[in-house]
């Protein structure tokens, strides 16, 4: 599926600027961005629920949106899972699933197969109002998959669920979608969700697709400091780049890639740092997570700079302890300082 | 527009103002107070009542409403009614209260202020203004030469679909009652059926017929004379004109508006004073000149441009004289199929 240079607006306020993504057959693409970045609008443009001002959408070999073309949503062969499930409250679970199968042979069989697939076979005659949120989303998934859509669009489908339930439903959905092998786009503002579900992730900001890549590419090679911070915890500190290394408060670090020498912003992930007993820094805060711990560390001779986040499996220090900070990673990402300033 | 706070303040101010206003308007309940229930609307009587107050110092509390509804209200209120005087647009409503024994007899002094033909034989009510039954016609649609001299001419097929009547209205019912008195039930019934057969159109009241004639919806209508003068005063382009039937025709009877005193009123003296006032010179002149009605007190002439009417024929006075009274009249109207 190809989405190319989509521009779209709400009440004449532009919300998408030349947004483009490519999703391969059978792939799960996560669209990640803060709320208001236009990711849901992009999804709705793909579904045909929102008309783009310009740009094209091609699903399979069918152009569904382009200048001069607009295929109605009902003819696009897209399935959609809404944030609230959007089950039709006056229809039973089975009737909901069968809704998109009108006129098909063996609709009944398909309905019960789909309900079985999502583990809701025993709830066919229940009304949505009598199901839990997680159950409703399963039925909604069965409903969306039943007509065998070319693309499945998931619009923050887990955000309305309780935290505990969310992880479970997310896992189940991922397994089901992998079984079915349907091309999927998942819209989410939750980086965990995007990374755990998506084969690839497209990060959006202010109506623009900023970066597209696998979760590890995004985490390790973010396109700019904003992405770096959005997809994970990031320490951004000042440094001087000499062509190979960057001089920073935590030492001289090997820089990935290349660029002009000069003042740079250096991205250091918390797990690339460690603390040892020492004197140059002080522990401001400790968050203990069991499998690891996170320290807020203030370097004493750099007043005014933000504290550094450090993640370690050992939790031997306490607030107020004097420590030294060490870089334990292999290399870091940097951006020239001006560019970093621009992207804010 | 304006912010919520302003709107809220405005509403509070509005409510406060309304409370004050309503308190003021009902704050006059001292000793010498007379309460009237008036089927005559405010415009038709208020100045006279104001004059009466100024003249006598008696405060007149006025409850306006539809004559029939007010009669029902007085009946329902029973002994608890605050009403001292009931003014009715037509004899039907006073007749109802008379039947229900809710009226107090008037003194001979009051009764003698009008000719015997326009007051109750038993002395329970007295007419104070008259409205003549006439045919209102649309000047564009009816040639004056074809205007009938008698209501019986309206049975002619030439008038098919052209007539408006108000069969459920008191004045029409009073007029039919009068027709029964003068010509007998059979003639009345036959005439009603002829009207129905002529596809007479049914309207709720006189003013609606006059308006319909003005619009050209019907060519002619059987109404009280008063309404067309009103319509002409409202709109000089109004297309309706009154036509009187022959003086002797049952169709040109006079329908009186009636005054009565409610049984049990502890203000009967003041009440009689008020009725005398209504029959006095200034009030009668008001009815003649301002509301285009026929004054009933002897010696007061109708307004110059109102054609004279005979006092001999006064409609719907004594229901008791007729079998079944008003009820039978209405049943005849219904049986004729005039209402449907």
């Amino acid at each position, binding site marked *: 599926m190809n989405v190319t240079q989509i521009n779209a607006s709400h009440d004449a306020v532009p919300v998408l600027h030349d947004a483009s993504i490519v999703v391969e057959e059978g792939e799960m693409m996560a669209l990640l961005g803060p709320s208001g970045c236009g990711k849901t609008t992009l999804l709705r443009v793909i*579904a045909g*629920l*929102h*008309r783009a001002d310009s740009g094209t959408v091609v699903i399979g070999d069918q152009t569904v949106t382009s200048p001069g073309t607009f295929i*109605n*949503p*009902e003819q696009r062969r*897209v399935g*959609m899972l*809404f*944030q*609230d499930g*959007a089950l*039709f409250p*006056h229809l039973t679970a089975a009737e909901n699933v069968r*809704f998109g199968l009108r006129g098909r042979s063996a609709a009944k069989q398909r309905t019960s197969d789909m309900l079985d697939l999502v583990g809701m076979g025993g709830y066919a005659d229940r009304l949505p*109002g009598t199901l839990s949120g997680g159950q409703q989303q399963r039925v909604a998934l069965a*409903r969306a998959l039943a007509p065998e859509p070319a693309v499945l*669009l998931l619009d923050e489908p887990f955000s309305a669920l309780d935290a505990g339930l969310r992880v479970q439903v997310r896992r189940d959905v991922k397994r089901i979608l992998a079984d079915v092998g349907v091309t999927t786009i998942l819209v989410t503002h939750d980086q965990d969700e995007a990374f755990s579900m998506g084969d690839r992730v497209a990060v959006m900001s202010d109506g623009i697709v900023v970066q597209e890549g696998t979760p590890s590419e995004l985490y390790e090679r973010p396109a700019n400091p904003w992405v770096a911070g959005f997809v994970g915890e990031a320490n951004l500190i000042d440094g001087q780049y000499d062509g190979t290394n960057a001089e920073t408060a935590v030492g001289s670090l090997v820089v990935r890639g290349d660029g002009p020498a000069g003042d740079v912003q250096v991205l250091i992930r918390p797990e690339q740092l460690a603390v040892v007993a020492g004197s140059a820094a002080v522990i401001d805060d400790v968050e203990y997570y069991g499998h690891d711990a996170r320290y807020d560390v203030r370097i004493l001779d750099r007043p005014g700079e933000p504290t550094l986040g450090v993640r370690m499996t050992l939790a031997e220090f306490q607030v107020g302890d004097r420590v030294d900070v060490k870089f334990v990673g292999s290399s870091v990402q940097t951006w020239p300082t001006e560019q970093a300033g621009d992207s804010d | 527009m304006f912010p*919520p706070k302003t709107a809220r303040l405005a*509403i509070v101010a*509005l*409510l406060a103002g309304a409370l004050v*206003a*309503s308190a003021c*308007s*009902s704050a006059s309940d001292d000793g010498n107070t007379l*309460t009237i229930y008036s089927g005559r*609307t405010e*415009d038709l009587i208020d100045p006279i009542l104001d004059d009466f107050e100024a003249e006598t110092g008696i405060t007149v509390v006025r409850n306006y409403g*539809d004559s*029939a509804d007010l009669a*029902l*209200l007085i009946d*329902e209120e029973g002994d*608890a009614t*605050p009403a001292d005087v009931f003014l009715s647009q037509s004899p039907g*409503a006073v007749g*109802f209260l008379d039947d229900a024994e809710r009226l107090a007899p008037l003194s001979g002094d009051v009764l003698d202020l009008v000719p015997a033909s326009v007051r109750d034989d038993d002395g329970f009510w007295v007419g104070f203004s008259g409205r003549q039954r006439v045919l209102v016609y649309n000047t564009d649609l009816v040639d004056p030469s074809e205007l009938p001299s008698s209501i019986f001419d309206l049975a002619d097929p030439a008038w098919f679909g052209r007539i408006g009547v108000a*069969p*459920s209205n008191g004045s029409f019912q009073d007029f039919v009652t009068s027709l029964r008195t003068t010509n007998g039930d059979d003639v009345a019934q036959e005439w009603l059926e002829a009207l129905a057969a002529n596809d007479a*159109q*049914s*309207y*709720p*009241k006189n*003013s*609606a017929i006059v*308006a319909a004639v003005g*619009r*050209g919806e*019907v060519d002619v209508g059987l109404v009280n004379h008063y*309404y067309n003068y009103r*319509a002409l005063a*409202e*709109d000089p382009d109004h297309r309706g004109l009154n036509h009187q039937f022959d003086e002797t025709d049952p169709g040109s009877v006079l329908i009186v508006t009636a005054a009565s005193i409610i049984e049990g009123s502890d203000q009967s003296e003041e009440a009689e004073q008020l009725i005398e006032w209504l029959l006095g010179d200034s009030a009668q002149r008001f009815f003649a000149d301002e509301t285009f009605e026929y004054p009933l007190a002897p010696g007061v002439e109708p307004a110059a441009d109102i054609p004279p009417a005979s006092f001999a024929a006064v409609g719907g006075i004594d229901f008791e004289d007729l079998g079944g009274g008003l*009820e039978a009249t*209405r049943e005849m109207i219904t049986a004729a199929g005039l*209402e*449907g």
Partner: protein
Amino acid sequence: MSSTRSGTPNWLVGHAVLVGAVFALPGLFVFFRAAQLGGDLGSTASEVVGPLGRSVLLALSVGATATALGTMLAWLVVRSDLPGRRMWRLLLVLPLVFPSFVGAAAFLTSLAPGGLLHGLIESVGLEPPRRFRGFFPAWMVLTLFTYPYVLLPVAARLRALPSSLEEGARVLGRTRLGAIRSVTLPQLRPAMLAGGLLVFLYTISDFGAVQLLGYDTLTRVIFATRLSNRGVSFLSATLLILLAVAISAWARSAGPDQLRPDERVGRFERPAEPLGSIRLVALGFVSAVALVALVAPVLSLLTWSIRGLADGRVDLGELAVPLLNTAFVGIVTAILAVVVVVPLAVVTIRHRSKVANVSSVAVTGGFAVPGIVIALSLVFWALNTPGFSFIYQTFPLLILAYVIHFGSQALGAAEIAVRAVPDEIRESGRLLTPSRWLRRRQVEFPLMRPGLASGAGLVLLSTVKELPATLLLAPIGFETLSTEIWGAYEDGFYASAGTSSIVLVALSGLLTWALVLRRA
């Protein structure tokens, strides 16, 4: 707290019983009088059967068309990208505010030579009807004056409906119309039914318009016989009330199954549905409705009014006190009606109380009882209930009459509003704030507000134009705009009637905007 399904709080049950009893007062009075006067059943039946049939036929027809029209207009002003939606939302509600006889008279004036509609019909080369009377005219005019009963609750429901339902249906292969039919309409059904029921009840109780339009119904019998043959009058009123009760009970049973809580509320600002090529057609349609139902009668009233203002017969200043009084009774009644019926709606919907269902039928039936009957019944009860005569001819009795007459308009809306608060939200609210009142205020009330506002709006619009009860029950000397209109119109003072009517329409518009639309 004991407010669980199994244990309905006592005060709620008590309230339901009390409300049912109070709303049944007019009916009980009518039954009592009918039995006491002993009207002849046989002759009454033969006299009444024709008008009764016509009442039912007209009410069913008007109910159907007003429901269709009101629903269509609601969708256009709430969901579509119709130009000027905000303005239409207000304008399209206003036809409700014409007192029945004034609206019909103004409409007929507009059809007559010199009137707007007359000119329009002529300008398209047609012959304007000389006489606009009978079934079809009554059907059309009543439809145009009553569709707001449907428009308001349906619009409130549409606003609360999540867009994802229709969109879900679209991506599942339904066309736009198909999605509306299969998903939206079932969600709107309770609101449509509630509104359609009000239209039906209004139509069977209307006297002024149907009489002026020459269609003979049951109310004519009640009015025409009210002095001359009270037995027939009260028997006819009994029939009317039984008809209203039957239809209300039917509507309750045909209404949403209370075991199927099928109301959903949305959390998102919904995008407007693009009308595309039919945008102009839709605009033309909405304009046509506003033109015929609002502009044409208002222009007629203005014509009457301007003549009087021009030659000084009409003094606007005299309308100040009636204006304030009208606003006052309208606002007080609207608020009180909502306050009275909301607990009833709660106990009906959440506790599925049978008592409350019976009470609800009594409340609904009150709308079909002609105002004069309600007024007389309250006179009767106030004066014949020991210890209550002090209330007679006081302001509270007048307000009580209004609430009894128009409570049904708030009830339908209140039930929809109560359903709009899902159980989960109520329960999570309960965890967050221990105070019941705080919870209602902060969590439940905002969700119920669109529904309640639409109900209060209907009550307000009905109250400000109410006449018979106002004339008979208001403290003596209490003038409202509608008593002014009546007094003037009754004797053909059209200039004055027109001016008061215009002021009434303007006031209603302002109040509707300020109290209902701005908040919904």
